[in-house]
């Protein structure tokens, strides 16, 4: 009989209110065992995450050691300022996450909700900036190997919001509307718990646009400072001089195309940002025309070779690296690594939202804070991976 009592006691441990936490699973002896199991499980999961990324880090190391000149050439197209800003955002989000764990342990309900909301907001800012970086590169033809376009093609200068950005921002925009309505309704109904969820989510969706705004601001500041991409290309020639050189390189690159030369001349006289923003239609039209005419493209390529002759002897010329198998491969690896990382950020946002919902229901206390702790660990590893990605892709030349 005592055995039977034990069975029932154990089997229905979670709803007979024996005085332990309602979240203690029936197959664990005590809260400590449950916490330790969860923690070990999370650490193992992080090990699999590290190994998951390790494949791409290997690919990076391999191709970097085989083609160092490609890395030198291609990494200049990455915007260190935006990368550094995003690093800061993620580091700050790790702080808020760790603070959130502390809040959960101390039963600071409000603090936990605020910390989770800030973490979510930082994640959204990160994604917003990332969207700017990505769309800018897509417009420039800086794509994975199969679709990479040479930077010597004229008419590719670009700044200002890209049409891709509108596509990417559609979902966050919908989220703003949806969460806004939900927040409004829950406030109107006076449902405190729901509004505590909807409010932070609304802020998160808005934070994406904050990220986009910051990204755009940095981009245009950069554009104003450096001229344009072609100028950046000229930099690697070792000629760190005035716009005039870039203009020359341009003229050469454009070959005999009068129209393009004129256009570029203008561009350098006027404010480039305003110009391009004013005529996006022209941009794509000209690009299409150029792509459609192979003769011109060869001419462009040979001109590019001429322009690149100043490169140091013994090294591959820029024309050689500025192609699908060169810089294209760099961008393949760049998109794979940062893309998979961004997916992890998105996944993290989903579990953070789950935590937020549970936090508003007051589930966590000094006995039971495991989930916050585990998600915190996950969030730190995602942060840590970025800490490696940033120098490897953006900083090392």
């Amino acid at each position: 009989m005592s055995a039977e009592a034990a069975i029932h006691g154990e089997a229905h441990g979670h709803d007979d209110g024996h005085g332990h936490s309602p979240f203690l699973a029936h197959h664990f002896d005590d809260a400590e065992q449950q916490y330790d199991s969860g923690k070990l499980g999370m650490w193992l999961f992080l090990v699999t995450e590290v190994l998951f990324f390790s494949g791409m880090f290997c690919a990076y190391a391999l191709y970097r050691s085989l083609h160092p000149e490609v890395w030198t050439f291609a990494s200049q197209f990455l915007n260190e300022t935006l990368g550094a800003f995003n690093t800061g955002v993620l580091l700050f989000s790790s702080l808020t996450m760790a603070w959130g764990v502390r809040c959960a342990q101390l039963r600071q309900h409000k603090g936990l909700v605020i910390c989770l909301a800030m973490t979510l907001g930082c994640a959204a800012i990160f994604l917003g900036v990332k969207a700017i970086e990505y769309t800018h590169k897509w417009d420039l033809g800086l794509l994975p190997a199969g679709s990479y376009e040479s930077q010597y093609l004229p008419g590719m200068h670009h700044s200002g919001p890209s049409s891709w950005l509108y596509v990417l921002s559609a979902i966050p925009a919908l989220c703003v509307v949806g969460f806004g309505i939900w927040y409004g309704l829950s406030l109107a109904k006076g449902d405190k718990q729901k509004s505590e969820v909807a409010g932070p989510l609304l802020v998160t969706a808005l934070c994406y646009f904050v990220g986009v705004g910051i990204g755009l601001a940095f981009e245009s500041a950069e554009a104003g400072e450096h001229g344009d991409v072609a100028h950046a290309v000229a930099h690697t020639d070792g000629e760190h001089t005035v716009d005039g050189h870039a203009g020359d390189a341009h003229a050469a690159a454009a070959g005999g195309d009068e129209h393009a030369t004129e256009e570029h001349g203008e561009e350098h006289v006027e404010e480039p940002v305003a110009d391009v923003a004013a005529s996006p239609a022209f941009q794509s039209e000209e690009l299409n025309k150029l792509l459609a005419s192979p003769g011109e493209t060869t001419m462009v390529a040979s001109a590019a070779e001429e322009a690149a002759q100043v490169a140091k002897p013994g090294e591959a010329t820029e024309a050689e690296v500025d192609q699908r198998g060169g810089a294209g491969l760099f961008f393949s690896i760049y998109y794979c690594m940062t893309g998979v990382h961004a997916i992890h950020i998105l996944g993290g946002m989903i579990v953070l939202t789950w935590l937020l919902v549970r936090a508003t229901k007051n589930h966590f206390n000094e006995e039971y804070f495991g989930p916050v702790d585990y998600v915190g660990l996950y969030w730190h590893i995602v942060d840590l991976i970025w800490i490696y990605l940033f120098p490897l892709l953006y900083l090392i030349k």
Partner: protein
Amino acid sequence: MSAVPADSARAQQEERENFLVFSKGFLSWALTLDHKRIGLMYLIGVMSAFFLAGILALLIRLELMTPTNTYMNNQTYNQIFTLHGAIMVFLFIIPSVPAALGNFLVPIMLGAKDVAFPRLNLCSFYLWVSGAIFFLAAMFYTGLDTGWTFYTPYSTTTQGPVVAATLGVFILGFSSIFTGLNFIVTINTMRPPGMSWFKMPLFLWATYATSIIQVLATPVLGITVLLLAAERLMHIGIFDPEYNGDPVTYQHFFWFYSHPAVYIMILPGMGIISELMSVHSHKSIFGYRFIAYSSIAIALFGFLVWGHHMFTSGMADVTTIIFSALTFTVSIPSAIKVFNWLATMYKGTVQLNTPMLYALSFIFLFTIGGLTGLWLGALSTDRVLHDTYFVVAHFHYVMVGGTLVGFLGGVFHWWPKMTGKMFSELWGKVSCALVFIGFNLTFLPQFVLGSRGMPRRYAQYVPEFQELHVISSIGAFILGIGLFVALGVVIHSLMRGRKAPPNPWGGATLEWQCSSPPPYYNFATPPRVNDPYDYTPLEYRDAERGWEYVHPPTTDTPATEPEPART
């Protein structure tokens, strides 16, 4: 518990509370968190996959009866062997022992109520199901012809549904990772008081070693197939020579997982054999620590030898020599196990029942498989034997002769525990004999074929090889019949089998202390933890009661006493 006399009230309670019938209805199975039910569902799943891939194997052997195309063209042949290999590897062998038997046994052997993360466990089962659906749909839709290895550049240029198949592999990989993760945590945190690491049953050591590989190697497969899918969808160029990528990089990535995966397949089988050898010889396992450590050694060495799949792919000479040398080191822990199993039988009371016969077959076949691996690990002979039937025969000896036979032995050994029914010993032995004879008849001739130069993966061959191919095909059909007999034995036992006692074989591990089948809560009171290989307190009563403890097993390590000093 087994010491309690079997009165009718107790029997009725057992009947009511056994995990098979405790709750009824489709949802009570589909949404179950009970590790035993999940294990059984896995068992049915992997057996269906095995059935399917086995039929395909027979189709291949039928085609190879003649040197010319008989009823398949070359393209169909490519698709059939791809389907056979891929289903066998990803859907059957990898999840067979760990997911099906492991799920059932790990918590019970630990005296625990469940695995550490029951919901994750169910999640991995459904990941397996959805991966399988993805995988099969992709393959049956238009047919995949890349071989199960998806080598580039062919896999990036073929018309087949590579993306869908790789996503299926990706999902199956996560199922495998979560199972491994679950077991590591369960074994680490949920061992009962008194069960120190070196008092664990060896099956748990093998499962632990397997889980380590699953957690460490499978993510690399995940990223590899993801990059392959990206290669096809976006031409990222990492594996594509057209964009300065390198197809050999794919092979490195792929084998970095897939060689350790070979040990995911064989280690749990070895764990089963360690249990079977000891229980059915009624003698304590010989060299417990050596067997335990050799499992871990195999798991770790397994990560360092992937290059031996690529000796002819173009690596630096020094690299090939290093990989070859490392490959030979794997034979040390493997041989340690074989010698210890043999020594366990020495002077034991060996009972030649069905599980034991399968275990003996395992040792014989695995030894041949292991020894022929040395030819392939040696650089000079591998140049000649690479991509011939010698390789096919070698890995079938390890995978089928090792894992499958071990798996069948394990299924027969724990079948009474899982279902509460005894099977027919006679027909069990017949199935084992047919499997053993059929298997050798199928694959021994293939060693000869391979050494004479018959390349693998061809639907047509020169007429000189026909005789051996015919023998091999006949053997395959005998093997098929043997497996059908085995299936018949277990199905018959479900319908007509007599009730199994809690301990029909005289095992001393904890799973034999609960009733057969176990109640949904496994153990009413925490089981007595004792030496898992001490058979002295067990005595055979009769067919109805099986083996029982004559006096309570020696509990010389009370819960409060610290772990005994390691000598």
